[in-house]
């Protein structure tokens, strides 16, 4: 980081936070040479583009990723190529190491595992004592058969291992696809910490967020609405027509949770034009949408639980009697819900909200209104085609502007550190042929990463609330947190040789400071350097 440029008049933490965020991200504060500063020794457009491409389309430079970008005509061309590649990859199953495969098993198997877990726990009243299976899954060791009473935790750990390895190894997962998977999972967040949700979280990531990552938004939304993870997370599975008879003659009724968040967070936004009445009416429309332990999709429409009255959501009338029954016998009651969800997905407020979040995730904390508007128009014109929107985004001047930085979230930082050290760590452990054959050497890195993310306040799959985490600098650029990033970097890169391929991305000041240090520390210091804190 060139020390001469950014002068901010603050020591005080809170303002330092906001003004650091602003001044840090726009390099033109003092009008100095904007090509200096974070990370680049040469001011060429290509190297700035290279950094931008690897850091934002992927999770950060690794030797493999840099080679891949350099093989393309230009970083910008490479970025655009990734859209179709990612889309194609999303239609194939993820590459899973054999010991990680269970978390993406068919849903009926996961339901069975969860059932067996409940039964096993009821029998043994598993305590929090020393438990080799529990320790094994915490250590990311999935080599032995798991005890049934730790099924959920094992599923969650496997999913976490897959996410982190996918994000840091382009040979395992298309980098743009990994990015879009993160974005959509966060937008349609479920919380792995909720007991009923935990075993299904990984399946949700793969089959909802990943599969539909570059398809049509309304298909993504429908997939989310029908998946057990979401049905259980926001209590939709339990929401039934008011007065429905329950077990032992009790009466059950509506639960508004999912309907509210569907409109407030997943689509329109809090000012997107709905009322409390709409929330309730939408909840009525969605009654009957619940989980199935035997269906391949984990979903069933339980007609008995459906509110068959007339409802009105955003001025549109929904009435089961009005439409034709479908061939599969589900009837028009289910159709109401599908129609309502598609209606929300196609709403202009949804286009604005989704495109704003995409722009904040990929371009800037405060993207220009012009960019958001252009993306929204593309969204609406393409009927919510995410590939089309991403093409517009990755072609925008704003995305490639070297002066505009995004401060890395803890997830960004962790994955970029994993990516940068992957080859060195794998080589260190004796090297294993075939990406994804075994998470073996990565195990220590994955465990460190999960701990880091927990302490940083961004636990993997562990954001408790449906709004998902923010990605702006004002949220994550906290002074003490910077030191914890240094801890993680040094621990991860311990015993890793210096990462020479990173040198071109570091500033002169950083390079010369690091050159004076012990070789054993140099890799960690590179990752802990100011240059590596932004993307």
């Amino acid at each position, binding site marked *: *980081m060139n*020390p001469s*440029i*950014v*002068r901010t008049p*603050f*020591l*005080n*933490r*809170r303002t*330092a*936070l906001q*003004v*650091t*965020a*602003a*001044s*840090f991200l726009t390099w033109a504060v003092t009008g100095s040479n904007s090509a200096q*500063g974070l990370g680049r020794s040469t001011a060429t457009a290509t190297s700035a583009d290279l950094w931008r491409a690897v850091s934002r389309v992927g999770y950060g430079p690794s030797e493999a990723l840099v080679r891949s970008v350099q093989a393309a005509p230009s970083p910008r061309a490479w970025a655009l190529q990734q859209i179709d590649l990612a889309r194609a990859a999303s239609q194939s199953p993820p590459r899973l190491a054999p010991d990680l495969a269970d978390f993406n098993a068919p849903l009926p198997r996961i339901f069975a595992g969860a059932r067996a877990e409940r039964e096993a726990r009821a029998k043994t009243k598993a305590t929090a004592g020393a438990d080799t299976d529990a320790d094994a899954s915490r250590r990311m060791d999935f080599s032995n058969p798991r005890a049934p009473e730790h099924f959920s935790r094992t599923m969650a750990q496997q999913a976490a291992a897959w996410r982190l390895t996918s994000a840091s190894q382009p040979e395992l997962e298309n980098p743009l696809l990994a990015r879009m998977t993160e974005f959509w999972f966060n937008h349609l967040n479920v919380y792995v910490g909720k007991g009923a949700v935990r075993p299904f979280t990984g399946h949700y990531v793969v089959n909802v967020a990943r599969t539909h990552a570059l398809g049509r938004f309304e298909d993504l939304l429908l997939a989310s609405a029908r998946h057990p993870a979401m049905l259980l997370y926001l*209590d939709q599975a339990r*929401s*039934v027509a*008011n007065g*429905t008879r329950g077990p032992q003659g009790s009466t059950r*009724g509506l*639960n*508004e949770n999912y309907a*509210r968040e569907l409109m*407030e*967070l997943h689509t329109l936004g*809090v000012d997107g034009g709905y009322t409390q009445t709409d929330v309730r009416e939408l909840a009525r429309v969605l009654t009957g949408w619940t989980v199935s332990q035997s269906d391949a999709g984990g979903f069933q429409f339980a007609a008995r639980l459906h509110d068959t009255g007339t409802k009105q959501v955003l001025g549109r009338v929904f009435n089961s009697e009005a439409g034709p029954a479908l061939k599969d016998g589900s009837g028009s009651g289910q159709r109401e819900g599908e129609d309502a969800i598609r209606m929300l997905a196609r709403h202009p407020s949804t286009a604005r*909200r989704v495109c704003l979040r995409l722009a*904040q995730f990929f371009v800037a904390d*405060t993207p220009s209104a012009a960019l958001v508007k252009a993306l929204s128009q593309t969204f609406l014109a393409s009927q919510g085609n995410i590939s089309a929107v991403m093409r517009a985004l990755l072609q925008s001047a704003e995305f490639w502007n070297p002066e505009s930085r995004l401060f890395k979230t803890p997830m960004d930082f962790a994955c970029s550190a994993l990516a940068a050290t992957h080859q060195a760590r794998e080589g260190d452990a004796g090297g294993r042929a075939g990406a994804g054959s075994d998470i073996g050497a990565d195990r220590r890195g994955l465990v460190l990463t999960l701990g880091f993310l927990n302490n940083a*306040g961004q636990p993997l799959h562990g954001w*408790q*609330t449906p*709004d998902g*985490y923010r990605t*702006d600098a*004002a*949220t*994550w650029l*906290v*002074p*003490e947190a*910077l*030191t*914890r990033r*240094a801890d993680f970097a*040094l621990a991860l890169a311990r015993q890793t040789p210096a990462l020479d391929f990173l040198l071109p991305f570091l500033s002169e*000041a950083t390079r010369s*400071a*690091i050159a*004076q240090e012990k070789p054993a*520390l140099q890799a960690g*210091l590179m990752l*802990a350097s*100011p240059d590596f*804190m932004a993307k």
Partner: protein
Amino acid sequence: MPTFKHRPPANPATPTRRQLLHALAASGSFWAAPALWAQPENAINTGAAHAGSTGATGTFGTESRLIVVFLRGAYDGLSALVPHGDANYYALRPSIAIAAPDGSAQTTLKLDATFGLHPALAGLLPLWQQGVLGAIPCAGSPDPTRSHFDAQHHWELGIPGKSSSGNGWMNTLASLRGTPAATKPVAVGVGEANPLILVGTAPVQLVPKGQAATRQGAVGDPRTREALMKLYAGQDSLSQAFRNGADSRMQTAQTLSADMAATGMDSAQMLAASNGAGNPQGLLLDAQHLGTLMRQDRNLRLGFLSAGGWDTHANQGAASGSLANNLGNLARALVQLRRDFSQANDVVVVCSEFGRTSAENGTRGTDHGHGNTLWLMGNRVHGGRWHGTWSGLAQGNLHEGRDLPVHHDFRAVLAQVLRTSQGLSGAEIDRLFPGFAWDKSLDGLMRA
């Protein structure tokens, strides 16, 4: 609240701060030793030095501390302060009402003819009986939003209805309590990365949750500290932030570790000895850390804690269950806070962004509501009683026929607390809560 709220940078600093900044940065020893933060032995001197500095700290010195505990997710106040005297309560909540008081276990602990405590809050009963714990059953924000995120935003800004970014009211309060050239934090938050209520121009100490707070990490290790500081030696804002963070982190870790060493027990033993609670974690551990930090650094006058997991839409349970467990944890944390914050003008506020529906929903839980019980704890609190208007749970008296009404604006409650315990003037309180109105019916809330 949509998650894409923008937070534009704060206004540029005054020249005083800029000069101070450069002076400090140039000194070179900024991060070398925890010299900038108050040392324990300076505590009394620091307090005295502040005593005459602003009107707000006037006669209140170090004995006037405010702790805010925010329960995120809209906790169910009707399960905490139970309206056992209202037959509607039992009609509205057939599965989840807490049984009426009859002296047996798992029933409401009677406070008076109207209200009682959830049995999991038994630890608070002595505090109520001592007259240091009080409640306002129908407090809240006048804004009708039932969005968690919006409502929390309003509470933390102190401006109901404002959806754009701004400064947290506790940060503004910190500015009022500190000296104009203050670089030492007056406010500390434990547990959250960056809560909005503490955002603003005044310096704030942020401490992570759990045991992480006790570890210095690489910046505390001589083998790595120097190398890291060289990387962040510049005058740019990121470097300053790093050095800032290193200093603060080392000081915090030392303080928390020293405190545990001084007592001769680790915190787990301490807790086990005192109430059999076993390993402290979550809110209780954070409350302990808050108490330690504010005890050792008398500059710290304002503390913030939060706890989540209150959004009980399904199967919330009654006398036992998930909500009851959470209430039990809360009670232990509040008892701990009472131990650490029982000086003359210390006040602990426990609040949530809104309440929950009076009736149970179709899944043995409750949905988002409006008014909620707000708790106050402190010697200056007129405790042992509940305050304000209670209009019962007859449907005609419910907000939109479903929720507790908000009879008392949370700002009016806080104004009473701040006027009495912190000596703030009306004008100063108006800076925190622009345009709020005094609620004379709450004039008996605090002891004169």
